[in-house]
């Protein structure tokens, strides 16, 4: 995708205001809440801390790109089955971060999941159901592979 942006615009602004992909959220704009989490060439970044111009040539995955066509990704499915969201505002960041974890590690421990997700703040759930959802998604992904 090609787009033009001002030098001072962040990747988050480019996604939301230039391209119109509003699934990625702004909660703090200083890298402390994780609501704007996206993948940049497979690595987790806070898109509010990346300039739009730095994204030139990079592959960016946002929450809009997680589902496989009409099929929800197992992480998305697990979030719904476990009631792992309440207001849903932090959810896009958690979905992207959790998928990135499970792409690399098929069987993370509870402690590992908690450490991995510590960059993403959720104020509604107390994280319990989010951790369980990621555990369930991991198990389902392992079963699909097996």
């Amino acid at each position: 995708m090609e787009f033009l942006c001002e030098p001072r615009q962040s990747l988050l602004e480019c996604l939301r205001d230039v391209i119109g992909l509003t699934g990625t959220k702004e909660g703090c704009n200083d890298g402390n809440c994780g609501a704007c989490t996206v993948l940049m060439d497979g690595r987790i970044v806070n898109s509010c801390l990346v300039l739009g111009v730095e994204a030139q040539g990079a592959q960016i995955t946002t929450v809009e790109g997680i589902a496989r066509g009409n099929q929800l990704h197992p992480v998305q499915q697990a979030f719904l089955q476990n009631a792992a969201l309440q207001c849903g505002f932090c959810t896009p960041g958690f979905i992207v971060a959790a998928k990135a974890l499970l792409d690399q590690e098929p069987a993370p421990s509870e402690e590992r999941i908690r450490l991995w997700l510590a960059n993403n703040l959720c104020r509604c759930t107390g994280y319990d159901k989010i951790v369980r959802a990621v555990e369930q998604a991991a198990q389902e992904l392992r079963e699909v592979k097996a």
Partner: protein
Amino acid sequence: MSTAEMTVVGTRPIRHDGADKVTGRALYGADVQMAGLLHGAVLRSPHAHARILRIDTSKAEALEGVLAVVTGADFPDSPERLVDLGEGDTPLSYIRGNVLARGKTLYKGHAVAAVAATSAHVAEDALDLIEVDYEVLPCVLTAPEAMREDAPILHEDLVTKEFGEKTGRVSNVAEHFRYSMGDLEKGFAEADVIVEREFHTATVHQGYIEPQNATALWNNDGRVLIWCSTQGAFTVRDTVACMLDLPVSQVRVTPMEIGGGFGGKIPVYLEPVAALLSRKSGRPVKLVMSRREVFEGTGPTPGSYIKVKMGARRDGRITAAQGYLAYEAGAYPGAMVGPGAMCIFAAYDLANVVIDGFDVVVNKPSTAAYRAPGATNAAFAAESVVDELAEKLGLDPLELRLRNAAKEGTRRADGPKYRRIGCVEVIQAMRNHPHYKAPLPGPNRGRGVAIGFWFNVGLPSSCSLSVNADGTVNLVEGSTDIGGTRTSVAMQAAEVLGIPAESVRPTVVDTDSVGYTAVTGGSRVTFATGWAAYEAAQDVLRQMKERAAKLWETDAAAVEVSRGVFRAGERSMTFQELAARLGETGGPVVGRGAVNPRGVGGSFSGAIADVEVDPETGKVTVLRFTSVQDVGRAIHPAYVEGQMQGGSVQGIGWALNEEYYMSADGAMLNSSLLDYRMPTSLDLPMIDTAIVEVPNPGHPFGVRGVGEANIVPPPAALANAIYRAAGVRMDRLPMNPPAIMEAIWKQRD
């Protein structure tokens, strides 16, 4: 209906808005886009207390790309009057003054002016060009300081009310009230053990992840159209109309998806400002707060100073209780000290009580509701003292609570007598929980318990249902869905209609499109809007029976319906079959429900917490945590658990980390999510839940409401656990490492 007969209530269907919320399609307030949209920014006071001598906006107006600049002078110049927007009478000047300061700024972050421009960056650049001359005044930041006779006065026209009467004395105390019952002196004289302690709690923020936002268009027909993230679209409509001197029908509010609120998104901040900017520019204007603006410019919950004195006999009977609560309202009166005072001893059946409450203005942001507003501060104090009483009496802390627990017929000091409540059942569930019985070996570890109460509220809700030919039903409601209430409301309609939860499609609509509906707050949506949906579903069934009677050429009275099947003698039809035949029997069926329920059921909650305290650093690790709550009836148990877990964790954050760290001149020094440290996934264990169901006789399904009571006990439970782990009684929040080390060192000396 008993639980056994119900097929939808008590199940865990996937929420109706689920797919949109895991794919990024759900549209929140800041996601609003429209042609010609301008972006705004707000100039805020750098001083905690200052007189505004001059504002010059001319340079900002001249900047290319700027289309409008507004200040408090742009509000209509209507005379002062009292306005009731659901929380008692408030002077119009206070409501307008908090949104755009006039004359004085009362806290650092107080909005002074706003700009609309072609981009957010241009708007921010323009703020630097607005010139404001201030006369800086001395500021006052805590209730005890603000109550002193020589304290700087925030409002020269604020006359202290005492016991309901105007005193004629100008001070920072907006009100002093008292609740009393029995004979306090006699009660203390009967006591074998008396504990008296003082407590301080810091200002904390609700911490919703989505910042406040508003988009407004002052349309060419004179109507003001608003899109925003709010807990109450009708409250925004009524407040904005009142501030702009418009009839309510001239304002339409569309509630977008909302990223958390917890009480903090009941007041308006940006909506009227966006409207003023739109009127001046002729274009739609969007305003979105930064995180710093959220901390400095919106309403946190009050900091407080509380004294509690309680006495008990050796047999474990509490004979007297006295409370003194001074809450910091922030810049304008309304500190929620009333509910704090009503809740402080609400869990106990007491004969002799005196409670004094003080609503005190200070130079901090004007406070707003935060989940069981006022109750958590109060319970931290009272439940710490109850714990100390139990220790002195040599009683198990839950046993002492059980011996004094409030029950049906207990009168609270503020007047009301309880109907059926679940306080005893909650304490029993705590005592029987495996967590309470489990051993907790190891040094520096301790277990604490506490209980708490929240009233919940009723208030009006409206709902309509229209039946589709395929047997599904569209549900239209006005309650913003913050935690899955579309589903808990739809499930109650589905239960009545005898169809699956998935067959009811709920939609939250704007203020033109549904009857008046009060805020998503007070744990009321599943209770009251759920009840409106119940009534609407009953209305649908009445009409459907008539349709079946028409088809069967019989009387509607001869038609019975049960679990979605209509019957008259031998004949029967399912809801779905009958829905397909509405066209031939008279046309569409639309059911309506509008309620203003009285049968509100209060909710009791308890917390069991295990902690480990590092004696070298003072860091507290939560090892295990269990939340117990009487919810009346759990409509969707997974989201009920979610409320209990979320409230518990907010309580844990309040207890251990969170605070407005203020400089002496009134600046918040930690206004970012890095420094205002809310719990992360790594800070917590799993949060266990035990749902207690003592059905509320005042609701068709027994619902009480579950959103709030769960935040009340955690700080006290953690304080009591810390005492058992480290041997220190904590008398202030937050109980962060410096506070704990200070307490440990003090004890060693």
